[in-house]
């Protein structure tokens, strides 16, 4: 069974642009319009945030987007409803990113089944321990052809990176610096870490995220891996916009072409 994430990386080895947006943000029904604009204006992959009240790994910008989305009425139930027919319009690989608690309450099997039904390709759950995934949930994710993407950081040991790579499918999410999202730590200091990652020759493609916000940082990510993930900068760009599509077009053009 083929997965859109694998298809993407089979055809595109470099400069893959993955953009994160919290679902139901800025307004509840913006989820699909945002995805459509992202696809139309040149993103390669879409990461939809499942908003959570207590997003531990996120800085203020994504926290606020979560709070706003929850206030808008977003929940897993609403999200799956919104995504019911999205594959009629969106061919890009789509990931859901969020925290374990709402997913656990929804039920892991239910969640995976729903993802498969609507056409989601992968999931990022930063607070799901790798061991628990391997022992409890891996068969369920695999049954529904869902890739679970794990994170590595500059502090992750080589041995653990290898282990994460062996358990991950789709790609490995390399966090550029040890931080919460949107922290703006200097990526320039991370060259040794990126070199270390490259030297490990992982079986999965690698996308670098955290701190990617413009052409310079995206190019730096792309030159050290298969591409980059942008979250905070994108949320900031669209949070107060009156023209979602035009703003997204400008944003992506800025990342790709200056």
């Amino acid at each position, binding site marked *: 069974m083929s997965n859109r994430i694998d298809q993407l990386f089979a055809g595109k080895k470099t400069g893959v642009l993955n953009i994160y947006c919290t679902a139901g943000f800025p307004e509840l029904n913006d989820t699909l319009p945002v995805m459509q604009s992202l696809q139309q204006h040149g993103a390669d992959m879409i990461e939809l945030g499942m908003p*959570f*009240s*207590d997003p*531990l*790994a996120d*800085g*203020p910008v994504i*926290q606020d987007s979560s*709070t706003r989305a*929850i206030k808008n009425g977003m*929940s*897993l*139930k609403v999200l799956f409803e919104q995504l019911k027919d999205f594959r009629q319009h969106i061919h890009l690989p789509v990931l859901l990113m969020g*925290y*374990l*608690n*709402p*997913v*656990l*309450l*929804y039920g892991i099997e239910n969640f995976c089944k729903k993802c498969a039904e609507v056409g989601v390709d992968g999931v990022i759950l*930063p*607070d*799901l*321990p790798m061991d*628990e995934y391997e022992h409890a949930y891996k068969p369920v994710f695999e049954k529904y052809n869902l890739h679970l993407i*794990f*994170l*590595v*950081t500059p*502090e*992750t*040991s080589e041995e*653990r990176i290898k282990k*994460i790579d062996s358990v991950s499918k789709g790609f490995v999410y390399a*966090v550029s610096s*040890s*931080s*919460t999202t949107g*922290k703006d730590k200097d990526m320039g200091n991370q060259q040794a870490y990126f070199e270390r990652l490259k030297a490990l020759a992982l079986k999965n493609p690698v996308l670098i995220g955290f701190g990617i916000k413009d052409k310079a940082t995206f190019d730096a990510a792309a030159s050290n891996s298969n591409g980059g993930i942008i979250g905070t900068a994108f949320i900031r760009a669209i949070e107060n916009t009156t023209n979602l599509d035009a703003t997204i077009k400008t944003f992506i053009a800025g990342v790709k072409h200056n």
Partner: protein
Amino acid sequence: MKIAENTFGSKYHVDEKGFYGRFGGAYIPEMLFPNVDELQRNYLQILKDPSFQQEFDQLLRDYVGRPSPLYFAKRLSEKYKAQIYLKREDLNHTGAHKVNNTIGQILLAKRLGKTRIIAETGAGQHGVATATVCALMGLECVVYMGSIDIQRQAPNVARMKMLGATVVPATSGSQTLKDACNEAIRDWINNPVDTHYILGTAAGPHPYPDMVTRFQSVISEEIKKQLLEKTGKENPDYVMACIGGGSNAAGAYYHFLDEPDVKLIAIEAGGKGVHSGHSAATTQLGKLGIIHASKTLLMQTEDGQITEPYSISAGLDYPGIGPLHSHLYETGRATFLNATDDEALQAAYELTRLEGIIPALESSHALAKLGQVAFKPEDVVVVCLSGRGDKDMETYIRNLPANTGGNV
């Protein structure tokens, strides 16, 4: 101190993977893995080290003032027709049980080579206890505290500042303990190498629940010795303690967990009433979930968003309970009651007038349920008086019953 005894295999103690039954674990993002892994790999060994134990014991004795007295409350006993003893954690240096844990963790942090300390605080007692040990050891200290709590616990904010700590307001979410804890965890993610997070309660990722419980277990260790002296028996019939995250309760229960004759009673904050929509009674309102990286009972919406709890007492204003307590609840080992704001206030006024002790609002919740347990006159009841009420004076004075003209 017997803090390092190996308890794996006991039904009520943590297992090798950090679980109590189905509760516990370490649901952390990868950014926290090195920090938490370092603690998991080292904490038992450090706690077991004789030089650590010696230093810990000495500080508890000479600096904290332990053992804290076990006081036979004569007039309270007459009123409730039982033999009631108060474990006087309120007499500790800094005014609560919190310092037992901060002494332990600061010694641990030093052994791990950490130079910067962060902490969360609700009522401010843990923040003060952390700022105190940081001053003692000359380490930098940053305390996260919800904006609302900063307002309602002003004296403790002033104490932390005087002790040299930086108090950072947590402005996200409900702006109380839960959010302070979120901010502390985020700080730790951003400072993975030099910083130790002194978590103040028996919650959070493994090994915190077990580590904090072991440091607090000095409470029940002393109760056993003191009861033997006073009554000829080590074990009481009841141990009662309030529960927010559950550190004083965990410490008061610890050495009785495997003594089935000792009935354990936990008292949660009922707020304005369990079903009023303004409560922090987690076992009554919560479901299995993950909060602060621990799988435990927590208050949440049907969509899995963590609910903003409510209690008059900042220290109990937490939407979860530590995993040990979820396990004690689920197995029936402990009985869970809850006390409303009003009941807690009345209990505080009562203890003050009967025994001349002004308790912390948190501890008052435990006292408030003395009338609801069917004691026999000869039953020995230990109530953990986890802290003193100085920090709550404003609330106490504001709520003095009107018809007494200030005379309770």
